C-alpha cells in the first residue's frame, strides 16, 4: 500500500498531538493534583437542612492543621454564609448543598466551580493562597432572581481569621 509522504507526516503528528493532550491531563492530575468534584458524599434531605448537623448553621470551621471545612447552603437567591471568610495559605474543603432547586457555585475567575443539587452534597477541596476578595456567583438558572444570586469569598490573613472566629461571630 502506498501512503504519501505528507500523509505519513500528518499521521505521526496527529498521534503525537493526542499523546500530548493525554499527557497534559495526566501531568495535571499527578503534578498539581487536579481532581474532579467528589461524588462520595451521601445524599441528604434537602427539605430538612435546618435539622442537619452541618448545614443548619452554614459556616467555616477548622478540621485540621491548616485545613478547614466550609459548609455552604445555596438557596433562591443567595449563598450562606455570606461572605464566606477563609484563612490565607490553607486547604479548604467546600461542602455545598441546595435547599431548593439546582444552583451553581462558581468562585469567579477561579477553578472552584461546581453544580449544587438539592439532596446532594458537592465536595471540592481547594488550596487557598494570598488574602483576596473573590466574587461568588450562581451559574445555573434557578429562577426569577438568578441574575442577582451572588455572594463573596473573602480570603483574609490567618491573624484576621482567628480574630474573627474568637470574636464570637454570629455565624
Amino acid at each position, binding site marked *: 500500500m502506498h501512503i504519501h509522504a505528507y500523509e505519513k*507526516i500528518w499521521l505521526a*503528528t496527529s498521534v503525537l498531538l493526542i499523546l500530548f493532550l493525554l499527557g*497534559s491531563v495526566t501531568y495535571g492530575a499527578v503534578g498539581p*493534583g487536579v481532581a474532579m*468534584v467528589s461524588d462520595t458524599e451521601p445524599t441528604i434531605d434537602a427539605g430538612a437542612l435546618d435539622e442537619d448537623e452541618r448545614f443548619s448553621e452554614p459556616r467555616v470551621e477548622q478540621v485540621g492543621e491548616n485545613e478547614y471545612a466550609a459548609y455552604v447552603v445555596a438557596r433562591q437567591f443567595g449563598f450562606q454564609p455570606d461572605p464566606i471568610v477563609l484563612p490565607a495559605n490553607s486547604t479548604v474543603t467546600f461542602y455545598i448543598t441546595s435547599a431548593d432547586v439546582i444552583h451553581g457555585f462558581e468562585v469567579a475567575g*477561579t477553578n*472552584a466551580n461546581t453544580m449544587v443539587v438539592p439532596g446532594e452534597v458537592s465536595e471540592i*477541596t481547594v*488550596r487557598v493562597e494570598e488574602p*483576596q476578595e473573590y466574587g461568588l456567583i450562581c451559574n445555573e438558572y434557578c429562577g426569577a432572581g438568578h441574575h442577582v444570586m451572588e455572594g463573596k469569598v473573602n480570603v483574609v490573613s490567618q491573624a484576621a481569621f482567628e480574630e474573627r472566629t474568637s470574636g464570637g461571630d454570629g455565624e
Partner: protein
Amino acid sequence: MAQNETAHAPADDVGGDTEEFDPIGTLTLIGIYFVILVLSWVYIYYIEFLGRDLVVVG
C-alpha cells in the same frame, strides 16, 4: 479499510514511489493550523487553567 486499499493498490497506485503529487501549500497550511492548535492548548491548559487560583485538588 486498510485491507481494501491493499487489494486495489496495484491499480490505483499511479504515483509509485516518486511523489508527483506534491501539495506543499496544503502541507504548509495544515502545519500552521497544527501549530495554532498546540499553542492554544498550551495556553488554555497550562496558563489559563493551571494558573488560576483555587485549583481543585480533591
